[in-house]
């Protein structure tokens, strides 16, 4: 990306070549992640099973209890956050363990590598949300559900979660041991504003009180801003981290 900007004045043809090469690299990284994942199904099974088990557990424990909408919103996001964090840390650790990181550093621009990994984590979060949220709503029904609002919150929250967690995953790839625990520790401060905003917005989608809906619409925008800030900062800082 940085290369394309500096080359922009030089020649139109070389710029488009650089862009298409960048896109190719990002797509190749994404495709490789997807293929490895479909071969082993490590992250997918861990994350999705984690989410399903927690949803079932929560609903079994709370059977017969009258749970308010705001409590349900908090439960949904706690489950999503913990499930996501158990799987998102793999993308860069896998490269270090397989010993392929050095080749990747030499052959692809760093921002393209990050873009590919980010896309994969986005897809992973999408799958987790697709499985666990409908299951949650099936087991713990919400009467006045605002579906459009909920989908917007899940999309924006998922995007922010993916970019923040992908960057922290790049950081912990350098750590000596205890990587998944460390990933959770260093991600929580970064994800705390996201979690608070997402829960507040989901409350509006669950209880359908006009004031809460109004606040939730605002929060969706803020969640989008959070995702943009996190993605921009990740792309800027990733170059330093990746070439270390």
């Amino acid at each position, binding site marked *: 990306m940085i290369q394309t900007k500096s080359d922009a004045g030089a020649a139109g043809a070389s710029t488009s070549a650089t862009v298409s090469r960048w896109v190719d690299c990002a797509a190749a990284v994404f495709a490789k992640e997807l293929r490895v994942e479909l071969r082993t199904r490590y992250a997918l099974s861990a994350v999705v099973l984690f989410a399903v088990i927690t949803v079932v557990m929560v609903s079994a424990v709370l059977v017969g209890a009258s749970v308010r909408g705001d409590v349900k919103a908090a439960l949904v996001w706690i489950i999503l956050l913990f499930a996501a964090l158990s799987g998102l840390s793999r993308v860069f650790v896998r490269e270090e363990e397989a010993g392929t990181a050095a080749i990747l550093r030499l052959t692809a621009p760093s921002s393209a590598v990050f873009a590919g990994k980010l896309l994969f984590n986005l897809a992973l979060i999408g799958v987790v949300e697709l499985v666990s949220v409908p299951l949650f709503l099936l087991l713990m029904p919400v009467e006045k559900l605002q579906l459009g609002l909920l989908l917007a919150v899940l999309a924006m929250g998922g995007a922010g979660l993916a970019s923040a967690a992908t960057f922290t995953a790049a950081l912990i790839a350098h750590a000596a041991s205890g990587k998944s625990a*460390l990933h959770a520790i260093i991600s929580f401060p970064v994800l705390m504003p996201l979690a608070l905003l997402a829960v507040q917005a989901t409350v509006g989608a669950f209880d359908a009180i006009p004031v809460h809906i109004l606040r939730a619409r605002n929060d969706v925008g803020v969640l989008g801003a*959070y995702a943009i800030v996190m993605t921009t900062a990740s792309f800027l800082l990733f170059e330093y*981290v990746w070439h270390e």
Partner: protein
Amino acid sequence: MNNSQRSGFGAPKPSAASAPQGSPLAQIPKVLLLLMLCATTVAGFLWLPAAEGFRNPALARIVVFHVPCSIVASIASGVTMWYAIAYLATRRPMHDVKSRVSAELSLLFWILTTVTGAIFAKAQWGTYWNWDIKQGAIILLLMIYAAYFALRSAITDERKQAVIGAAYGIFATLCVPFLTYILPNSTPDTLHPKGTITTKDGLSPEYKLVLWVGVLGLTLVYVWVWRQHVALDAIRSRLAARRTPPPASGFVIVETGQ
């Protein structure tokens, strides 16, 4: 103490903090600083009148200890960020040392701010913790610094430690405005008084005087300790470089091996 990193200092020049330590004149600023801090403490407890407009006026005096701690902690956080960016830009190991030492002191002053704030909250608002905006911000900062040190301690190579630490510090600090400015906009209630030290009628002149002297004194303590630590680190690295012959770094091995 990884030597490959330490040797990167080369031959550090004697730090300014270790100037003429022996002469009695050098002790004068320290004595003045001690007197200043003593004066602030005594004035805070004995000279200041009980603050009006608080539920428990006598206990509001903690403001002259709480606010300086938070201001010094903010300064230390700013210094941490500044040198983290400087390190990523220049890769001079000294910048990383300055950033890390400042982060340690920043964490210390944030903890002091949290503790004095919690005591104040119990006296004035009834509970130690009530998720006020500033309490949310401070818990986030404490978590960021705790995670920063956890991350650094998990990385063995010192150069990687410095780069990863700096990158995480910058990244995580970007989250603070979301919790301190943006999120509270949808829930506009805060228990903290607004404009306490900036507006004319926020605090009485006596309070302002003691508070600002306290800020100055604590800032000087911070700068002093920070420079001592940085100088100590430079001495340690010089000692480490002297004990062992200059070790070949990983990059050198790769290049000569081919």
